[in-house]
């Protein structure tokens, strides 16, 4: 009996350790694959040349630029709306019924499958325009970023001490000034962190871009036209039998993952750095 207890205990602890090793080795395996397959294609031409036709050489310049443009447009749309929405939840809505409904729906939108956002924007924007476009892609990305920014803004504003608000109001400042000049300034690092997380969230999204911006094999800066982007390019190139395309897909995959991991790390380090200063 005593021995059995001891053995069960040992087996249990080893199993827990083993599970942790499995989890970590998946991360290591993915990163190893990305680096070993992607590094081979990391040349200067990757950043200067556009996506090649089948069988010829090229880079990912148009896809990177397109991703950059659509992500920035998406964030520029989502950030002001998200910050204001979060402000309403924290400062005005508080515990009202409407506010808790919005909070619930915000959580729902955050966890809605991103491919459905793509279908929605297709129905609303692409059909009306008659063709795929960079705008449609940016709007789809904005809808995905929006709930993230709303909830981080609300969380951050809730942390602002009431005494700060009272001090502002006591000096005769109207509420909007208290919120924007005192509240936003107090949580500026938090706001930036939330936006960084939103960028990290949308820059790897593929499914919502498939039916909205689609892809473009040429360099195009016109958001009214289909726009090249990294995720869809990676998807198409990875699925094709062409070897140069496969290599470009792996390089793009490495690039996009490094970018996202860097965004995540900086969103984690930023609050600490700000505190130290």
């Amino acid at each position, binding site marked *: 009996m005593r021995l059995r207890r001891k053995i069960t205990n040992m087996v249990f*602890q080893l199993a827990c350790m083993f*599970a942790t090793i499995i989890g*970590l080795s998946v*991360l290591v395996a993915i990163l190893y694959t990305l680096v070993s397959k992607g590094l081979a294609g990391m040349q200067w031409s990757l950043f200067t040349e556009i996506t090649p036709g089948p069988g010829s050489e090229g880079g990912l310049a148009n896809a990177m630029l397109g991703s950059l443009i659509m992500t920035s447009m998406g964030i520029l749309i989502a950030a002001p709306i998200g910050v204001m929405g979060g402000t309403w939840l924290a400062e005005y809505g508080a515990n009202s019924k409407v506010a808790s409904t919005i909070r619930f729906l915000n959580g729902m939108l955050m966890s809605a499958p991103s491919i*459905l956002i793509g279908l929605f924007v297709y129905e609303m924007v692409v059909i009306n325009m008659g063709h795929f476009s960079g705008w449609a892609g940016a709007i789809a990305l904005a809808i995905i970023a929006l709930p993230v920014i709303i909830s981080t803004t609300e969380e951050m504003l809730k942390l602002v001490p009431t005494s700060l608000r009272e001090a502002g109001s006591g000096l005769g400042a109207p509420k909007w000034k208290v919120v924007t000049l005192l509240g936003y300034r107090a949580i500026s690092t938090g706001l930036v962190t939330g936006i960084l997380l939103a960028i990290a969230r949308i820059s790897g999204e593929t499914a919502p871009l498939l039916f909205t911006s689609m892809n473009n094999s040429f360099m195009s800066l016109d958001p009214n036209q289909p726009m090249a982007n990294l995720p869809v390019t990676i998807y198409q190139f990875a699925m094709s039998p062409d070897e140069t395309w496969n290599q470009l897909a792996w390089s793009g995959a490495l690039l996009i993952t490094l970018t996202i991991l860097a965004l995540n790390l900086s969103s984690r380090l930023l609050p600490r750095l700000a505190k130290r200063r």
Partner: protein
Amino acid sequence: MSTLVMKSRWHSDTLFQRACWSSAILIGVLLVSILLSLLHGAWPALEKFGFGFLFSTEWNPITSEYGAANALYGTLVSSFIAILLALPLSLAIGVFLTELAPAWMSHSVAAAIELLAAVPSIIYGMWGLFVFAPWFSEHFQLWALDAFSEVPVLGLLFSGPPMGVGLLTSGIILAFMILPILTALIKEALSTIPNVMREASYGIGANRWEVTFFVLLPAVRSAIFGAVILALGRALGETMAVTFVIGGAQDMNTSLFMPATSVSATIAEQFNEATNDMHISSLLALGLLLFVITFAVMAVARILMRKRKLS
């Protein structure tokens, strides 16, 4: 003069409040519009096929007959496999991080597991198709085909071509993808248990296994349940990773090695290629189905978690 100041102040204050209010309300408007636009697009298919759409295994663009059963089956089975694999794994990791590992190790391991959540789903898909699937085919499927061929139920599940892709592979890749969120939620739940409970249990001579299994895990049962439902919602809607590894076959098989499809993978693969209206409408009907399922699952998860917070 002073009334003028008051008036302009009142004005800018209301303006700001209204702008904030509209931004918040936009969330509700968006969700309702998503539902309505899917419903609108799916209407022709729903009108033609009715409830039969849910149960028909037909998916034929030539005869224009469509049913969701294959895709639904793939989505449900792969998500179920994912939960089945990820739950014990994340329970063990959660216990390791909160109960067994020293603090420094716990912090860094938890951070690494969280990084896993940041990896975009298309990367999981590529890795799953080009690295995991060949490995899995060679090191598990060939062996399993041999070992289980005579066993009643397992023989049926583990049969078919050892191609590496299929239902089981997408279940496993999904399990890796939901592992971080599940682990984080379980870890959080375990850390809310007051230390007194641990001390009392160890005090009467229980060992780590007994404390964990008979005291700690039962105490956070409902939280774990909520976490599982939340992770299930993630798995059901996951698109790109599944599209890469599920095989893309409009088929329904008991064999887990066979290529299959899922709701999201069908939409991702066919939407841009669909030319006739009924095909597009049927794909949108699949989208509507996915919306309803994930919404219901997530709503249950949220209500469960909220209840826990109140009590």
